C-alpha cells in the first residue's frame, strides 16, 4: 500500500503558512504602532451618521482609524457591563441608559460621567410607494390629522420593541401625550399591547420592512428617516419628545418592562461617554471632542442642537474636555 503524498504535502504547507500569517496579522494589530484606532459602540439609530458621517470625517481630520459597532442602546450597555466589549467610546440614545446600567457601585462604576451631544424627535415616516402614500402626503400637508390615518383600517404601521429599544417605549409615550393634546382619549388604546405583534419589530427589521414596502409607515427618530430619505410627518413638540421645554409633560409617562425596570418619558437626547475600561483613552478623548464640535455634521444628518450638558460626576471628565461642558444635566 502506498500513501499518496501529492495532496497532503501542499495542504500542510498551506496550513502552516496560514497559521504564520494569522500570527503576523495579530501582532500587527496588537502593536498598533503604525496606526492608532478608536472603537465606538453606539446606539443602532446612529448607524448612518456614524458610518458615513462622523467616522470618516474623524479619520480624515485626525488620521486615527475608526471602528464602529451598532447595537440597541440597552444592549450596548449590557455588553459593556458584561465586559463582552471594551469600546473606547459609548454613545447612547437615552441618557438614562448610562445611569441605569453603567453608573454607580452596583454597575461597577464603569461610567462616571456622560455628555449630551444631540437631540432628536419621534416622527411618522412612510414609504412613498405605499398604497396609502397619497393620504400620508395629505397629512404631511396638514389636510388631515396624522392619527386619523393611523386609526384607519388597513393602514399598516410599525414601531420599535419597548423591551429592547428606547424608541420602542418612546413611541408608547407619544400616544397618551397625543390623547391629552388632541383631547382624544381613544388614542390611549390605539396601539394595543406594548408587544402588539401587528406593529412591533426590532429597529433594524423595522427600517427594512418600511423600505421593502411591507409597512406603510413606522415611528422613527427624525434623523433615521432623514438618513434613509424616507418622507416623514413631524408631530407637535408637545408629543414628539424632542423639546426639553416639555420635559415635565413627557415625564408623566412611564413604561415598566417585564424585568420590573420602569422608564419615564424624557426629551430624546444622545449622550457620549468614555467607559472606565476603554482600551485607548487618548483616542477616545479625541473622538469625543470631535463629536462635540461637529454640530454642522450632526445637523446635516437630521439631529437637533443641545447644550453640551454633563451628567454624573464632573470631576471625572478628562481635563482636556472640561472647556466643552455647558453646565450640568439632571435626568
Amino acid at each position: 500500500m502506498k500513501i499518496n503524498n501529492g495532496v497532503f504535502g501542499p495542504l500542510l504547507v498551506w496550513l502552516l503558512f496560514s497559521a504564520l500569517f494569522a500570527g503576523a496579522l495579530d501582532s500587527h494589530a496588537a502593536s498598533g504602532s503604525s496606526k492608532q484606532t478608536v472603537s465606538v459602540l453606539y446606539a443602532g439609530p446612529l448607524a448612518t451618521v456614524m458610518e458615513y458621517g462622523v467616522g470618516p470625517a474623524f479619520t480624515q481630520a485626525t488620521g486615527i482609524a475608526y471602528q464602529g459597532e451598532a447595537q440597541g442602546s440597552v444592549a450596548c450597555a449590557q455588553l459593556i457591563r458584561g465586559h463582552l466589549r471594551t469600546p473606547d467610546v459609548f454613545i447612547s440614545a437615552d441618557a438614562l441608559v448610562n445611569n441605569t446600567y453603567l453608573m454607580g457601585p452596583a454597575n461597577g462604576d464603569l461610567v462616571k460621567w456622560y455628555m449630551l451631544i444631540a437631540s432628536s424627535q419621534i416622527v411618522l415616516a412612510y414609504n412613498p410607494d405605499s398604497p396609502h402614500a397619497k393620504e400620508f402626503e395629505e397629512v404631511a400637508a396638514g389636510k388631515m390629522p396624522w392619527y386619523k390615518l393611523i386609526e384607519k383600517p388597513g393602514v399598516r404601521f410599525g414601531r420599535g420593541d419597548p423591551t429592547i429599544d428606547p424608541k420602542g417605549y418612546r413611541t408608547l409615550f407619544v400616544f397618551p401625550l397625543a390623547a391629552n393634546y388632541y383631547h382624544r382619549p381613544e388614542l390611549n388604546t390605539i396601539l394595543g399591547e406594548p408587544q402588539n405583534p401587528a406593529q412591533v419589530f426590532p429597529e433594524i427589521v423595522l427600517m427594512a420592512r418600511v423600505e421593502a414596502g411591507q409597512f406603510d409607515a413606522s415611528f422613527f427618530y427624525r434623523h433615521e428617516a432623514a438618513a434613509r430619505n424616507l418622507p416623514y410627518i413631524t408631530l407637535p413638540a408637545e408629543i414628539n419628545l424632542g423639546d426639553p421645554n416639555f420635559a415635565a409633560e413627557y415625564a408623566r409617562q412611564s413604561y415598566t418592562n417585564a424585568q420590573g425596570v420602569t422608564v419615564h418619558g424624557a426629551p430624546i437626547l444622545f449622550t457620549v461617554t468614555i467607559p472606565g475600561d476603554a482600551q485607548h483613552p487618548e483616542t477616545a478623548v479625541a473622538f469625543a471632542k470631535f463629536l462635540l464640535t461637529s454640530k454642522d455634521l450632526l445637523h446635516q444628518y437630521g439631529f437637533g442642537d443641545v447644550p453640551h450638558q454633563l451628567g454624573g460626576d464632573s470631576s471625572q471628565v478628562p481635563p482636556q474636555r472640561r472647556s466643552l461642558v455647558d453646565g450640568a444635566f439632571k435626568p
Partner: protein
Amino acid sequence: MRNSSKTTFIAFGALGGLLLAALILPIASLLLQANWITWTAAWKEEGARDALYVSLTTSIVATAIMTVMGVPLSYVLARAGLPAKRFWIGLVFLPLVLPSLAGGILLMQLFGPYGWIGAPLASHGFEVTNSYAGIILAQIFVASPFIIIASYSAFERVDPQLEMAAAILGDSRWQILRRVSLPLAWPGIAAGATLAWIRTLGEFGATLLVAYNPHTLPVYLWVKFESDGLHGALPLALLLLLLAVIAVIVSALLSRISGQTGTAMVE
C-alpha cells in the same frame, strides 16, 4: 509501512483535535459556569416556556412538511431522469449558501402583507408576518436542503438492480417505491429529517425578519441578551443545547430502528 500510518494518524489526530477543541471548549465553558438552580428557574419563566412551546411546535410541523414534500422531490431528482439534473440539485443547495438573514429579507418581501404572495393571502385574512406560519416558512426555507440532499443520496444509493427485479416481477412504480426503495433509503431520510429538525430549532436570522413575534427560543434568547445581557441569555443557550442533545439522541435511535426495520423489510 506501519510506522508511516502511525505518523499519519498522529498528524491527523493533532489537526482534528484542535478543531474538536474549538467546537467543544465554548460548550464546556457554558456547562462549567452553569448555575443549575437559577438557570432552570429561568426556564420556568413565562417568556421562556412560551418560546420553548413555539419552537417545539413550529419545528415539528416544519419538519413534517419538509419530509412530506422533500422526500418526493428527492425521489424525482434521483429517479425521474430529469434533464439538467445538476441544475435542479444546485438550486436546492442555494438556501444553504445564502446567509439566513438574506433569506429572511427575501421571504419578507415575497410574503409580507404587500408582497406578491403575501398580499393575496392578507386580503383573505391570512397573515404570514409575525405568525406561526411565518416562523414555519422561515424554518422550511433554511432547513429543507438538509432533508432533500440526504434523501436524494439515500435514493441514489439504492441498487437499481433491486428496483429492476421488482419491476420484472410486475410491481408498479409506486409498489417498487413502497416495498423496495423507501425501506432501503429510510435511514438516510430519517437522518436528513433530524438534521433539518435541528436546523429549524436553531434558526434565527430569517425568523427575525419574517416573524419576530411570537418569539421562538433563538429569538427570545436574542431579546434576553439585548435586554438583560449575559445572565438573561446563558440559561436559554443551555436550554437550546439540551434540545440539540435530545435531537441527536433521537436521531441516533431513529436511524438504528429504521435501519433494522429497513433491512428486515427487504429481507
